[in-house]
């Protein structure tokens, strides 16, 4: 990566971590579009609990603790895991050896 590319990447990761770890505290707690529509139309009751409901990060809270540390840490973990997974897969499938040996 060029130094400008690296700067963009670092700034981007910091912004994503801040959004998931801090801004998420202020997200609206109202039912989202699908949830609301399901209630309106009358099929919300058909939702089943997820098989992963026992995950320590279920519902974006560490062990279900409803506080900022728990919510923020969950967001940070999610960003890092997503970055690793998507970044890893796209890095593996990329074309190797950029022409003219750039970067």
């Amino acid at each position, binding site marked *: 990566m060029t130094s400008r590319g690296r700067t963009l990447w670092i700034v981007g990761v910091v912004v994503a*971590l801040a959004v998931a770890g801090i801004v998420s505290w202020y997200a609206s707690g109202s039912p989202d579009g699908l949830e609301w529509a399901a209630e309106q139309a009358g*099929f919300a009751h058909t939702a089943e609990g997820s098989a992963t409901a026992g995950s320590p*990060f279920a519902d974006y809270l560490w062990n279900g603790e409803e506080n900022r540390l728990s919510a923020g840490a969950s967001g940070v973990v999610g960003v890092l*895991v997503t970055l690793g997974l*998507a970044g890893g897969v796209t890095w593996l499938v990329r074309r190797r050896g950029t022409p003219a040996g750039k970067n």
Partner: protein
Amino acid sequence: MQTMCNKVDVVHVPDGFLDPATSVSTGVLAAGTVALALNRARAELDDRTAPLAGLTAAFVFAGQMINFPVAAGTSGHLIGAVLTAVLVGPWTALLCMTAVLLVQAVLFADGGLTALGTNVTLMGLLAVLVGYGVFRGLAAVLPRTRTGVLTAAGGAAFLSVPAAALTFVGLFALGGAVDLPLGAVASAMTGVHLLIGLGEAAITVAVVGAVLAVRPDLVHGAQGLRTAAALQDRRPTAAGAAR
């Protein structure tokens, strides 16, 4: 204070909304398309763009955590499919959206495991297909300027949300868990998702605009601007520009 610590409630399609046959079908469709994307994304990814793809997925994960209020008592959140497709290309976008939805389903119990194929089909495949198609169509008729690209991205992002919502209604018609008048499901889904689409467009324009401002050469959907960008920017390489 209600805002002190809201439980983040992204809410994708949970288990149970659709019958097993429909879930299996969307699962097969999603798996097949992702396999194809693993092959096709290669053309979009190189040493420069692959890091941006991982970053974009991480940003979409973060962005989806932020439910914004829409109408009274309802909220919506980013999908991010158009944002990702415009930044890193449509096949890569499908991979990125799948990674986000997989992490959400497995780690955060957001969106059911049996509904993962449905969520990938709606927010990955469908939103990318419709959104990127609309983006390409609009970009072809709009001026090849930054404003033109951003307008096309915003319009496409707006439409991708009701398109995904209506596709869910279609799946519900095929294999909904309960028999309901479709009109009621469609009208409930469409109205609120048109409003959410406005938020999707605003976030997409802001993020694509920010990347265009600093690194226009990295933006997949702005390749037509590359020559102009290169004039005011450091030229990448002749080989890079020719790709």
